[in-house]
């Protein structure tokens, strides 16, 4: 595709869509799809056809609109509908020309919508992810065009560095610095990899980006490849995200067909090819060296670093690995400039962050907010607080690698530094809210069980340490734990954190450490109950008795 073709394609698409009088958009991401939004989409299309209004009303499937717990969500002109079902199709279409359907209306003036700042998700809910034309109408590939035709690779890297963008996968490493390292690495073959192996319990930010706006990810990767001097890219997606896989595959095929990826893009010397690789369901493959091993066709286990992938990664070549959300931030930065991006967020954490709100909050779903927003505002205003008259207890950020933040720290701001200071991490963006009925020892046990089953087994501290910590947490939860067990648990946390090979093991003790930090009394209560139970009875009768019924 030539530059002018992209422009004319965009203009034509925009003209085509403005020819419609009305537009109905239905969320067709995994959450709403599981509530039959695909049937609803078809019913709406049929209804429009029956009324002979296909030239007046545009009906399309789009990406996530955020308030997943009230899905399926539908946007019909200015009205947003929630809990929409196929049987509402007729009323929704009718409502376009009369009054909106009152009983389905979703208030878009509530803080959930008004307090957000959309950068990555600006087109989610607006574009049809399966239509390249629609994406281009909304500005897709403009940033790539700008980068390839008006900027040198060095300028692109400088722009990303100046923007202050940091990795959205968890650790928050400065993205520009990473790109510069790969750019400087020698060797003719280089790779860019997109890490779409999102696996934390309660996290679905990356899935939404891939399902709702896949071209934005491709564009970000292409710009990154241009900047670091790579010609090949790999998107690694877990196979448990079939819809993301389908949409990415389609996006790659369409982009390839229109020569937005491939040889001599926009008539420049830059060529870029992308392949999709599916993960077989291992959490550890989110770790970059394990991911690389998996792409190479080997067992997905991490290896010691250095060498870092930036110097020796996929097939021994310099490799840039970024998370989905990181790549999705690239196009807006190139389009609007580093200065624009850098004015969003805090001094050290620039831009926005997507969070997946789950647990005991009124509004579950996806939000994108400027970095530096107080946690209290997210929980109480955006998420609507804890339902059923219960009191807020803690919020787990960063999934199994993160930690819990208790009520007394709700006024901290959400950015890399303050979350780390509170003993948690930003992580990829999961936020699991717990109310007063949650037992924090049980929460720690849940996450430890996750780490135990996801440990790859390569290094001893993670392989056996997570197992033993889980055993000890079981004992404590079941009121069989002693003060010695609690001490051993603490000792194990330190050892596993310090000696494990990769991030999975190094961060596995975090949920225990943070619950110990803020809720140690809950551990002590359970341990003391064990003591009390033992004191009440003769030594021989303190549980652990054989159950004769188990014998045949």
């Amino acid at each position, binding site marked *: 595709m030539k530059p002018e073709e992209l422009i004319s394609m965009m203009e034509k698409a925009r003209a085509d869509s403005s020819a419609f009088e009305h537009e109905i958009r239905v969320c067709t991401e995994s959450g709403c799809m599981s509530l039959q939004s695909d049937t609803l989409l078809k019913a709406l299309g049929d209804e429009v056809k029956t009324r002979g209004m296909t030239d007046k009303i545009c009906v399309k499937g789009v990406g996530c609109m955020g308030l997943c717990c009230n899905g399926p969500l539908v946007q019909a002109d200015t009205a947003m509908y929630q809990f929409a079902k196929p049987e509402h199709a007729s009323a929704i279409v009718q409502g376009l020309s009369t009054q909106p359907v009152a009983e389905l209306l979703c208030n878009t003036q509530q803080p959930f919508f008004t307090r957000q700042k959309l950068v990555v998700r600006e087109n989610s809910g607006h574009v049809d992810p399966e239509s390249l034309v629609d994406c281009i109408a909304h500005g897709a590939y403009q940033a790539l065009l700008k980068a390839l035709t008006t900027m040198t690779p060095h300028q692109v890297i400088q722009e990303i560095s100046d923007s202050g963008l940091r990795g959205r996968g968890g650790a928050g490493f400065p993205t520009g610095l990473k790109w510069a390292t790969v750019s400087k690495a020698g060797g003719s073959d280089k790779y860019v990899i997109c890490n779409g192996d999102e696996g934390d319990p309660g996290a679905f930010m990356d899935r939404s980006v891939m399902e709702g706006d896949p071209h934005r990810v491709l564009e970000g990767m292409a710009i990154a490849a241009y900047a670091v001097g790579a010609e090949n890219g790999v998107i690694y997606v877990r196979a448990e995200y079939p819809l993301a896989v389908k949409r990415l595959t389609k996006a790659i095929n369409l982009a390839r067909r229109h020569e937005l990826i491939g040889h001599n893009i926009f008539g420049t010397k830059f060529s870029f090819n992308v392949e999709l690789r599916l993960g077989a369901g*291992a959490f550890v493959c989110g770790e970059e060296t394990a991911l690389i091993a998996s792409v190479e066709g080997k*067992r997905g286990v991490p*290896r*010691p670093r*250095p060498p870092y992938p930036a110097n020796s990664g996929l097939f021994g070549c310099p490799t840039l690995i970024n998370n989905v959300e990181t790549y999705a931030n690239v196009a807006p930065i190139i389009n609007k400039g580093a200065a624009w991006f850098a004015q969003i967020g805090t001094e050290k954490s620039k831009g926005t962050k997507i969070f997946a709100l789950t647990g005991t909050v009124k509004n579950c779903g996806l939000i994108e907010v400027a970095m530096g927003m107080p946690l209290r505002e997210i929980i109480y205003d955006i998420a609507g607080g804890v339902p059923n008259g219960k009191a807020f207890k803690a919020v787990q950020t960063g999934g199994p690698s993160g930690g819990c933040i208790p009520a007394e720290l709700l006024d901290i701001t959400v950015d890399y530094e303050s979350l780390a200071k509170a003993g948690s991490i930003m992580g990829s963006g999961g936020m699991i809210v717990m109310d007063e009925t949650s037992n924090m020892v049980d929460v720690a046990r849940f996450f430890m069980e996750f780490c*135990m*089953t*996801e*440990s*790859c*087994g*390569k*290094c*001893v*501290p993670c*392989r*056996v*340490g*997570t*197992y*033993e910590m889980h*055993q000890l947490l079981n004992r404590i939860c079941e009121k069989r734990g002693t003060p010695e067990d609690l001490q*051993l648990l603490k*000792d*194990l946390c330190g*050892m596993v954190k*310090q*000696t*494990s*090979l990769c991030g999975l093991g190094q961060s596995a003790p975090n949920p225990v450490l943070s619950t110990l930090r803020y809720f140690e009394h809950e551990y002590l209560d359970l341990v003391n109950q064990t003591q009390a139970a033992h004191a009440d009875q003769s030594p021989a009768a303190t549980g652990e008795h054989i159950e004769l019924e188990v014998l045949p």
Partner: protein
Amino acid sequence: MRPATSTVESLTLQIDGKDISCRSGETILQVARDNNIDIPTLCFLEGLTVWGGCRLCMVEIAGSPKLHAACATTCAEGMVVSTASPRLKEYRKMIVEMLFAERNHVCAVCVSNGHCELQNMAVKLEIDHVRFPYRFPHLEVDNSHDAMRLDQNRCILCVRCVRVCGEIEGAHTKDVKGRGVLAAIIHDLDQPWGESETCTACGKCVNVCPTGALTHRGTAVGEMTKKAQFLPYLTLMREAKS
């Protein structure tokens, strides 16, 4: 196998208070051992690629908040390394105790009793009991091969056998299946060893195995001794050839 760099520099560093000079590219473990400083290891074996799995060789480097695996960390000019702080000793003890708790290392009835690197490590680290609850898993013994035996009960997953089979013998009969504590050594596509079509019966895996997991058949308690000396010899000869 040292990288063949044209510019081999000389470096100086300090390990446990001792001033030492070495060549660039050498790992802390190599340099420490060359200078009679003992850093314990179980998965490391001279002649095989570095694995970094047992985590016994973790050392402290001044100025770094993290611990570093000596087998996988190359020396740098002016580095100050500490290999035996009380914290490191405690971590090593815990790691070896966890290995004992993970599977069924019943030394008294093991063919490698008295010639076992895990058992010797317990003595070296003064482990007189295991603080962690034992798992007592039910594990298989693969007796299907004519000459050799794989006893999963004794395996510590150091994967020396997997590496020697792939890297030295070139057969890649052995690999690992499963995750976490359920990971296990397998042959080919998880077939009985005796039915493997790729195994050349060279016996290298038996000789590099640190415990009684891989043994020759027909050995009784305490009779199995390993001879891993072939490995440095083989790699040396290959390096000379290439």
